[in-house]
Each structure stands twice: as structure tokens, then as C-alpha cells.
């Protein structure tokens, strides 16, 4: 259909175009380009509107708040007087997503290297598709799997980590199933595909000359990768990891299902409990009154700003790479 339709459409358009004066075409042009431009501007306006409405709806609740919004750990916006703060949520979000990144980044880059340089050429497309399938699984399914399957198996892993590394505060305490650690593992699985697919794109851009130069010097495959590929792809991989970090921070449902809420910051990451911005919104929305909703919107605003900054930085890093090419 591709080419034929194109030709037919051209012929048809010619037919109609010759039958009419050019001016109608210009009016059509104006309307159409206006619509295209308008849609583009609409997208920008949408981003601005998200910020404006979140701020607007957060302010009344913040004014009623009796506690410091930034440093308080408890979340009781429905109490009288309302007291809520994001300290625990910020801690949970940052720790769980960085831990997820720590687990996912090496594996994802390994996958990208495998598909780009080690796997048979014929299988490249198929293997890439298999990894992308991980991204096609909805987060609610990861949540269900994490809650009823993974967390049962994580208990043993957590206990081993606890006995081996218990002297480090993060691994101390009494290990449980629904810990920040378990949530991080689920998050790591969810951000694998995005990090590996962007890393693969970067590896594809590595100039063939660099690779061949390394090979001409007698480098082994690993040495070629270390000398020619990784230095070239460094900023791309950093950008990809930051995008993964942004995803992990905003992930809601899987975390909300896996974590059991226990109030208070707990640095023992293997113990049950913890909450993130997103999981807290999902979990406490049902019981939230007016102030409660405002408070959740306020915490959502903080999440929005954090992910916005992370994403913009990541895009800037990836874009800088493009300019070098």
C-alpha cells in the first residue's frame, strides 16, 4: 500500500489542485499549520498546567499543616490539627530508587553489551524484543507478582544478606518480606529495559573506526569494549541510568503493593516497612478527606519536581552526546 497510495494521493491531489485557485490551498495551509503548531504549544501548556494546578490545590492544605512539611516524618493530614511531612516519603523514594539503580544498571549495561557485541547477529532483533517484553508487563502485574511470589523468596535472600552483612546498618535489623529491599528488586526489574535499550542505541553510534583501530592493535573483545565502546558511550549510559532512576522514583503500584507501611524512617532496608511518595498517594487516597487530598497533591508536586529535574538532566546528558557525534 505504501508507495501506491502515495502516488495515487499525489495524482488525486494534483487533480484537485489544478481545478482550484491556489488561494484556497493557502487558507488550508494556514489552518493546518496552525493546528499543528497549536498542538505543539498545547503540549507545552499541558506541562505548565500540571505544575499550576498541583501548586494551586496544594497550597490550602499546606497552610493548614501544623507541622513542617519538609522535615516531619508522620503523615496525618486527616487528623485535627492536620500534621504531615514528607521526610519519610522522600527517604523511601530516594533510597529505593537508588538501590534499584544500583542493581539494575550493571545488569542492563551487560544486557546491552551482550545484544550488541556477543549475541549472534541474526538474533539481535529477537533478543532486543525479549528484553522489551519486560517493559510491556504492566506495573500492576509486577506488583501482584512481587507481593505473592517474589516477596516469599526474598525472605531467604534477605536473611543471608543479614547474616553476612548485618554489621552494616543498612543490612541490620530483623529481615522481613515486604521491605524496601524487595521493592527495590521489583523496581530494578522494571527499569532494566529502558536502561538497556538506550545503552544499546548509544553503542550503535560508536564509530566503527574506533572499534577497528582497537582490533588492529590486537585487543581482545573485552579490551575493544573497554577501550573503544565504554568511553564513547559513557555519557549515554549515565543518561540512560538517570532516566531509569526517574522511572523508579515515579513507580507507584508495584511499590505500593510490595511495601507494608510502617511509620517512621528506618535505615534497616531489609526490615518490613517504608513508603515512597507515589506508594503513599496510592495507599492513602481512599481515606483522604479534603485536606488529605491537598496534602497528597502537595507530595505529588514534590515528586513531579524531582522527576522533572532528573529527567531534564538525563535528557541534557543524552542530547550532549548527540552533538558530539
Amino acid at each position, binding site marked *: 500500500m*505504501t508507495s501506491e*497510495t*502515495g502516488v495515487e494521493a*499525489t495524482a488525486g*491531489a*494534483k487533480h*484537485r*489542485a*489544478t481545478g482550484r485557485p491556489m488561494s484556497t*490551498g*493557502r487558507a488550508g495551509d494556514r489552518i493546518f*499549520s496552525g493546528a*499543528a*503548531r*497549536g498542538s*505543539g*504549544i498545547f*503540549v*507545552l501548556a499541558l506541562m505548565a498546567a*500540571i505544575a499550576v*494546578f498541583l501548586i494551586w490545590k496544594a497550597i490550602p492544605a499546606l497552610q493548614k499543616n501544623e507541622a513542617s512539611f519538609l522535615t516531619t516524618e508522620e503523615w496525618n493530614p486527616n487528623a485535627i490539627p492536620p500534621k504531615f511531612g514528607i521526610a519519610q516519603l522522600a527517604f523511601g523514594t530516594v533510597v529505593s530508587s537508588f538501590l534499584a539503580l544500583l542493581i539494575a544498571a*550493571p545488569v542492563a*549495561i*551487560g*544486557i546491552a553489551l*551482550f545484544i550488541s*557485541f*556477543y549475541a549472534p547477529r541474526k538474533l539481535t532483533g529477537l533478543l532486543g524484543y*525479549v528484553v522489551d517484553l*519486560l517493559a*510491556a*508487563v*504492566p*506495573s*500492576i*502485574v509486577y506488583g*501482584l*507478582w512481587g507481593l505473592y*511470589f517474589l516477596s516469599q523468596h526474598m525472605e531467604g535472600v534477605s536473611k543471608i544478606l543479614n547474616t553476612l552483612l548485618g554489621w552494616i546498618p543498612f543490612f541490620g535489623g530483623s529481615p522481613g518480606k515486604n521491605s524496601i529491599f524487595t521493592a527495590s528488586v521489583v523496581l530494578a526489574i522494571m527499569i532494566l529495559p529502558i536502561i*538497556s535499550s538506550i545503552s544499546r542505541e548509544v553503542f550503535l553510534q560508536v564509530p566503527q573506526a574506533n572499534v577497528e583501530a582497537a582490533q588492529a592493535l*590486537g*585487543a*581482545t*573483545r*573485552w*579490551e575493544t569494549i573497554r577501550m573503544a565502546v565504554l568511553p564513547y558511550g559513557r555519557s549515554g549510559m549515565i543518561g540512560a541510568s538517570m532516566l531509569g532512576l526517574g*522511572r523508579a522514583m*515515579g*513507580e*507507584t*503500584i508495584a511499590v505500593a*503493593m510490595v511495601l507494608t507501611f510502617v511509620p517512621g524512617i528506618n535505615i534497616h532496608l531489609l526490615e518490613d516497612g517504608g513508603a515512597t511518595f507515589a506508594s503513599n498517594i*496510592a495507599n492513602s*487516597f481512599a481515606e483522604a478527606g479534603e485536606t488529605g487530598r491537598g496534602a497528597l*497533591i502537595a507530595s505529588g508536586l514534590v*515528586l513531579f519536581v524531582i522527576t*522533572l529535574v532528573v*529527567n*531534564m538532566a538525563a*535528557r541534557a546528558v543524552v542530547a550532549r552526546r548527540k552533538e558530539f557525534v
Partner: protein
Amino acid sequence: MSAVSSPAKRTPTLGSVSSARKLKDRLAQGLVYVAFLLALIPLVSVLWTVVGNGIKRLDAQFFQFSMNGVSGKDAGGGAYHAVVGTLEQVLITSVIAVPIAVLTAIYLVEYGANGRLARLISFFVDVMTGIPSIVAGLFVLAMWLLTLGIMKEGAGFAGSLALAILMIPTVVRATEEMLKLVPNDLREASYALGVPRWRTICFVVLPTALTGILTGVMLAVARVMGETAPLLLVIGFTKAINTNPLEGPQGSLPTFIWDQASDPNQNAIDRAWTAALTLILIIMLLNIAARLVARRHRPGSR
């Protein structure tokens, strides 16, 4: 390289690789293979558990009945209301998001000419792909439900609005890629015949890129279909069938899973698994269909 390094000799000569370097090479190779296998474990495990647990309730009843009057501990019940809700919401989402996204992509490729506005839009479309889904839900909640004060109990349409925010950037990116693949010769041929620009775009460029855009839309639909967080905030909750997306709470598959999974009764958990299986099946079908469409036609393949 391997052909050169294969003969192991005692005295290092030109072309031989020391055993330490060879060991490092093998080690790296092993690690990279392990990384790939590590990624397969969760994929296989997720699919295995979902199919294994979901198959129990994958019966006709599940697709013919809602949960109306069925409590968590009861056997039976179904997800008819959820399937209907999800399909309606996703359809409305596509109707809202696709025109805006395609027009934006047209602006970026055909009109923007890499100017300041185009670069700004392009950058923010990229940033938009990273908006957490829950924030999209909060935005619709703040704007639609709390400010305008309509659909206070939630409605399917509000869910569609939130999903549209998540769908727009992916469709813009996919469409942009496809429009860039359309050979410039086609445009020039059309201009040479005196065809106005907008007609060239509508009748030459878009038809050429159509299948690619369709693929992108289907993949975006598949992605959006599994989103739970925004729906949780804005579509309300109901166990009954509601086919009207504009009024009253509406069900959806993701929120159905969320609700049933939080119920401690085994019957409810079984329903959650079956709903998850249903969701995955729909998404996989969309994915496969998208790949088939993409394989059949590619712009610029002429």
C-alpha cells in the same frame, strides 16, 4: 581476533594473547552472558506465575459477570465490568491523544524546521515521557474533579484524560520517527505538481507513514492499558457494570486487580491473577499485532 589468539604458545610472539588477558576476556564474556540470563529470570517467572495462577478462573463466567453482589470470599464473580471499562477508557484515550500527538509530530517534522519552538516542544515531549503516572492522575484530580467540580465520584472519562497525558509523548515520538523516514522525493514530487503543503502532508506523507504510526499507536495503547495509578485516583470504584464513561464510577482491569489483590481471601486473589492474565493477553495481542503491521509495511522501503 579469536582465530589469531587460538594457538597457545609458550614464547610470546606477534599475535599471541597472554593468558591473563585471555582470562579477562572470558570473564567479561561470562558476566555479560549472566547479565542477559538474569533478565530472563523475572520475565519467565512473571509469565509463569501469572499463567499458572490465572488459568484457574479463566472461564466463561469470568467474562460474563461483574462483581455486583459478590464479596471477596465468594467464589464466582467476574471482570466483565472491568473489561468493558478498560476498553472504553482506552478507546477514548486514543481518540483524545492520537490527533494531538500526530499533529504535534507533524509540526516537529514538517513545520518546525528545528527552530526554537520545535526544539522546546521536542525537549518537553521527552521530559513528558518521564512524568510519573500518578502525577498525571493527581493533575486530572486537581483540575477536573476538584476545580471544575464535575464527576465528583470519578468517571471513566476522567481516567481517559489522565491516560491521554501519558499516551501523547509516546505517540509523538513514534510518529516523528516515521515521518522522518518518508523520503523527501515524495514531498518534492508533490510540491512540483503544485499541491499545497497541507495536502501534501495529508495525502502523501501521512499515508506513506500510516502503518508505522499505527504500530506506534498500538504500542502506546498497550502501554497505557496497564496503567493503574491514575485510574485509582480518578475513575472511582464500583463492582457493577457501568457502560457510561461520562457518569459515575467505572471499573477497569488494573483497578480490579488492585482491589482483588488487597483482599485476603483466596477466591479474590485468584480473580486478581486471572484479571492479570487477561490484561497481559490483551497487551501481548496488541504487541504482536503491532509487530505484524510494522513488518508488512515500512516507509521508505520502496
